């Protein structure tokens, strides 16, 4: 949903913009509750391999505040090109907050402040001159609940390319729509009903439509915030299959509550805990021999 944030006039957009704020409030509460737990975490120290060569994103000493509360504490991380990286961690650990920093979705939250440096291809995305619209065209997003516009399937996918002026002719637009739907694995199911309303599709189809809509503007990065949590196992499998195909062309960052999903789809896995980035490692390593005790407790279901 990369383009909808740019259109504050649109009704759907307005409701979307308020959604992160509500989420942020609940997250804040959880952070306070779990603060009571003592955890052997050294601030700013991430075990494993947080840095890669030829990184798409370079994040250094990132801190996120909601008012006085520090939701993200001194996180440094590289995200590689064409990498699938998943963020896991208990509720309130800050993984969604962190994800939303990557295309400045937190801008819409008044009390939210961000410190540190977030570089996309060596450009500071929080630079005062940075065009947020352009950023979000480069960094698309797919949300937890499928949220197609109440328009036709075609218009949903064509929406972004139209705003960003990516197609001059109708035939170009048709091509973009077809290609996006194909990449999202939805073409065969949708080609005969392109002009029927998108909300009439099943949940899994709607989510793949949202993915098609996100990739229609040719982003470089796709952020996914629990993209499968509202889907059944078959639709989940389709989306996961899609993720591995898309990773050939895009960098994909996925927040998930399903550890099995992180294990299945990602190259690297990052474990967040109470706003700290505790461990980043190859997914194979994280799920067989995690380095940090907290990571191990979490992935083996020992938390509390």
């Amino acid at each position, binding site marked *: 949903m990369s383009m909808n944030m740019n259109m504050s006039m649109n009704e759907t957009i307005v409701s979307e913009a308020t959604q992160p704020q509500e989420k942020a409030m609940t997250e804040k509460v959880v952070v306070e509750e779990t603060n009571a737990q003592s955890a052997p975490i050294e601030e700013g120290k991430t075990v494993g391999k947080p840095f890669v060569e030829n990184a798409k994103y370079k994040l250094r000493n990132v801190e996120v505040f909601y008012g006085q509360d520090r939701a993200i504490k001194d996180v440094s991380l590289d995200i590689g090109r064409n990498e699938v990286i998943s963020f896991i961690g208990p509720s309130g650990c800050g993984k969604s907050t962190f994800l939303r920093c990557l295309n400045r979705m937190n801008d819409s939250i008044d009390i939210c402040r961000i410190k540190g440096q977030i570089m996309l291809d060596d450009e500071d995305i929080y630079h005062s001159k940075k065009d947020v619209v352009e950023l979000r065209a480069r960094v698309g997003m797919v949300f937890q609940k499928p949220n197609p516009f109440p328009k036709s399937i075609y218009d949903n996918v064509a929406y972004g390319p139209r705003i960003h002026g990516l197609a001059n002719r109708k035939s170009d637009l048709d091509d973009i729509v077809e290609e996006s739907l194909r990449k999202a694995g939805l073409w065969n199911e949708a080609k005969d009903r392109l002009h029927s309303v998108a909300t009439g599709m099943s949940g899994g189809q709607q989510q793949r439509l949202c993915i098609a809509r996100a990739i229609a503007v040719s982003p470089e990065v796709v952020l996914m915030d629990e993209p499968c949590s509202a889907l059944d196992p078959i639709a989940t499998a389709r989306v996961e299959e899609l993720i591995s195909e898309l990773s050939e062309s895009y960098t994909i960052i996925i927040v998930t509550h399903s550890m099995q999903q992180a294990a299945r789809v990602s190259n690297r896995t990052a474990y967040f805990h109470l706003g700290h980035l505790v461990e980043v490692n190859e997914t194979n390593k994280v*799920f*067989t021999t995690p380095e940090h005790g907290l990571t*191990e407790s979490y992935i083996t*279901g020992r938390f509390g």
Partner: protein
Amino acid sequence: MKKENEGGYGDHISHEFNEDLAALNADFLKMGYMVGEQLTNAVTALIDGDGFKADEVRAKDKIVDKLELEIDDEAVRIIARRQPAARDLRLVIAVIKMVADLERVGDEAKKIAKSAMALSEEGHAPHGYVEVRHIATHVLEMLHDALDAFARLDTEKALRVMKEDKVVDEEYKTATRSLLTFMMEDTRNISRCMSVMWVLRALERVGDHACNLSEHVIFMVEGEDIRHTPMEIAEKVVER
């Protein structure tokens, strides 16, 4: 070295997961001690020339085999239903591999029992019992230590078992050499000496299986597969 945050297998949020893993653990150890008992009885039957006891060992091997199937089944069920990760996963995988070793130890006990029956009918072999007793004591200790290392997640103990295996190999070589001498001295001894030789061979194999168990214990605790690597690497992994 023991890792901090060890905690055992009983601290999951899911109570049933705790119970599943605890049951797997307990059943594995039960099988381990049963196999050890089989081996002790087989060797005693041999030395005492007790055909009846040897027969018992052979019959009881069926129970060992059945336990192997049960434990494998439990492990598969845990993987299917709980999707264990990290050390839970390593425990389950290690157990699946280790039961195969235990089952083989059970088979070796059966083989020894068979030889014991043959010798109880043919009459005592003139030589080799001292060696059998000695090596049997040694490998039984290794087997128990390996099981103990598993139960306590004690990789240092596991490493010691692996080192002991080298000693057993030497003892086995020496014993076979002396038996060969006896066979050459008097050809009438050959048949009975060969029976003892098979027993020694079986015992030496038990040492190998104890060594395999130890390797799996180290994998389970440290997450590092040290099979087919030099002892120095295993030492480094354990000392870490």
